[in-house]
């Protein structure tokens, strides 16, 4: 009876820990699109102001600078996102299979240890 209780308690603890970690990742990475837009807009303000100061001469020159500024913003956002991973392509592998494997191994080892 106590064994069952201990096992259930451990399982519930694990589930709650998992839920808490997921919640934390939710709060830190909440609405990634919005955060990306914010960073883009904050970066675009100095670029656009410099473009506005230099584009007093004529309309064609103004158009060229604004498009250039737009491209700069696009490139900087792209490089910022990849620079977060120290100039690497996005890390697209998780540790979930490894954890699952270790978990299954532990269960099997525990089964054999009891025998």
């Amino acid at each position, binding site marked *: 009876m106590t064994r069952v209780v201990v096992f259930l308690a451990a399982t519930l603890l*694990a589930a709650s820990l*998992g839920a808490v970690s997921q919640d934390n990742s939710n709060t830190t990475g909440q609405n990634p699109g919005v955060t990306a837009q914010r960073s*883009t807009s904050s970066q675009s303000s100095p670029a656009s102001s410099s473009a506005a100061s230099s584009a007093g001469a004529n309309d064609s020159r103004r158009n060229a600078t604004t498009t250039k500024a737009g491209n700069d913003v696009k490139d900087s956002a792209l490089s910022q996102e990849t620079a977060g991973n120290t100039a690497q392509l996005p890390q697209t592998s998780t540790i979930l299979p490894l954890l699952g494997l270790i978990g299954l191994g532990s*269960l099997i080892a525990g089964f054999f240890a009891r025998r």
Partner: protein
Amino acid sequence: MQVLRTSTFGRPRRFNRNRLKLVLKPAPWRGPENHEKSKLLNRGSRRRLIVSYVLFSVGGVLCTYVAGSYAWMYAEQVKLLREWKAQNASTQSDGLTKLSIPRIHLRDVVLEGISTHSLLSGPAHLTGSATPGTKGNSVIAGHRDTFFRHVHNLRLGDDVYLSKGGKQFHYVIKSRRIVEATDLSVLGQTPDPELTLITCYPTHAIGPASHRLIVVAKLDVGN
């Protein structure tokens, strides 16, 4: 006169051979040495029991966490798909994008921004790369052990569909290659509308990957 008792030698020989192998041993609780030995044995079995409890607990915790994570991913995608359907009906231009690849039975909603959270919820579109369906290189990344686990099965000429705001864009796979994780040339802009799918390589390895599988698709001209 008293008759002397006959000796045991008179017994049949089969008993003397001792075929039954009946070995008598003193009970384990008799004597101080045996008592100590049994104590040690008990201690050893108790230790094994504790180890087994620990292993069961660790295994239970990890398996529950992994199963919970996969269940959470599935629930998130179901929720996003519902949102996408609602947006698709109202033809919002800046709404969610759905990625469909019939060959690998992939039908997932793409999230904006490549963060850990968004990559756990689904395939993610690299912020700053071209919007799907427009000119330029649109980059979408996904985990090799969750959403993009069958991307390595894609072949040249396979169809890829991106649906957004009531419109569907048809891409055809034109190249497939493996690059180093540091090779950022795959993110470069292109004059034509292209779609780049990124996932880790080797596909069936466990742990961090040193390479990336890159699948490039071109927008179908008829679209």
